[in-house]
């Protein structure tokens, strides 16, 4: 009987302690999960004057919180790609001699359609729309 009562008390105390610990852990676990920050979605940015960029050169444009690589292919043609390598998210750059997009981190190469030419990147770079509005170059998300 005594042993039985001890057993009960043990369970009660242990259960109470466990429930308490759980009630401390739960808010803490929820707290450390970062809440979603609702950034105003960016759909369009102005990337400067058309004449600012020479043929066969490129510039990094801030598109919301992402880098976008704007390349002037010829007098009249511009292309824009997501600036983050599909391999491990390094920021890519334009390789003038090779006329390719190059990622320095693990030597990944993409062509001017964003397709992988060589190296470890698993997927093509996402492409953005580019058009001219008067003097300005406008970059928009592809729908």
């Amino acid at each position, binding site marked *: 009987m005594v042993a039985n009562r001890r057993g009960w008390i043990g369970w009660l105390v242990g259960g109470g302690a466990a429930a308490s610990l759980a009630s401390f852990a739960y*808010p*803490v676990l*929820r*707290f*450390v999960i970062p809440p979603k920050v609702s950034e105003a979605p960016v759909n369009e940015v102005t990337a400067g004057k058309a004449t600012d960029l020479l043929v066969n050169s490129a510039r990094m444009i801030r598109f919301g919180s992402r880098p976008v690589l704007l390349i002037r292919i010829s007098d009249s043609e511009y292309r824009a790609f997501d600036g983050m390598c599909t391999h491990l998210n390094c920021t890519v750059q334009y390789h003038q001699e090779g006329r390719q997009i190059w990622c320095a981190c693990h030597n990944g190469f993409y062509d001017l359609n964003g397709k992988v030419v060589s190296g470890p990147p698993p997927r093509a770079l996402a492409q953005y729309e580019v058009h001219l509005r008067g003097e300005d170059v406008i970059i928009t998300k592809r729908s």
Partner: protein
Amino acid sequence: MEVSARVSAVKQWLDERLGLEPVREFLAHKTVPKHSSTIWYYFGGITLFLFGVQVATGMLLLLYYRPTSTEAYESVQFIVAEVQFGWLIRSIHSWSANLMMLTAFIHMFSVVFLHAYRRPREVTWLSGIALLGLTMAFGFSGYLLPWNTTSFFATRIGTDVAASMPFIGEALARFLRGGDDIGGATLTRFFGFHVAILPGITTALILVHLALVQRHGISTPLRVERQHRGAGAQVAQLPFVPNFLVRELMAWYGTLGVLGCLAALFPWELGDKADPFAPAPAGIRPEWYFLAPFYTLKLIPSHVWGIEGQVLGLLGFGLLAAWWVTLPFWAAARDGALRVRLVTGAGVALIAYLATFSFLGYTR
């Protein structure tokens, strides 16, 4: 293998590598005196527990808090409005800071009234006083961090008071503010004090304090000691493990209950963002534990006997503090006899002063 056999195998494995046997042996024999004033001995432990709460919730706040004058207020707003349970964590940190201040004061005054500071515990008293000062510094530095109107002006007043100290005032105020006035530099500095420098020093000093308490054992109140000496008997002892430990844990659990209720039912306010160019709003006053000196300084006329009132007030506080810090040394007469009445009277007088002036400071 049976469960109990497996447990003892693990125990043996650990024992061999960590040498836990002496620790267990020590804990099994540690005792604390048992008498009717035992309840006052829990407040040191409760203060320690609340410090633990501060460290835990403080580290959580650090995950989102940003210590710059442009972002601090917004980041705290983000914590209370967006982060799940963020309001609760912040409210616990604020309430626990205040409770910790209160329990530290109770602990100090129980040491005074039970005369626990007496030989050989003078250094324990000094380390305790230093810890109380550090706790106040924690409160003062933390108060600025949300960068709201009240905290901004309270800090301006506080550092201005420091500036009016004779000789070192200007240098001290510049050191505290990280410049000539309160601004982003002050916030960065207070943040550094609050989350790195003070926690480091405090942790070290707590270890010293506890080591000294362990070294000398818990004191027995004079009254109890006298009764037993008269009867020629030993003071009754309570085993530390499990009896005292379980009681202490229950005290902590009760404290946590009070803290949880306060934090959940009265969430700590955030107020408006500090604007250095706006006039100070009416009714600016510091946290309650700085109210008594604040109100005293308000009462002193601008000049007394040709000395600036503020300076005179600070000198007075300096003397008062020195007198209180050295309590164990003037408490004993030349022949070693304790001036019990004098100390008790001093304790009562100090409580009376703090209580009335805090009350007046709060209501006027």
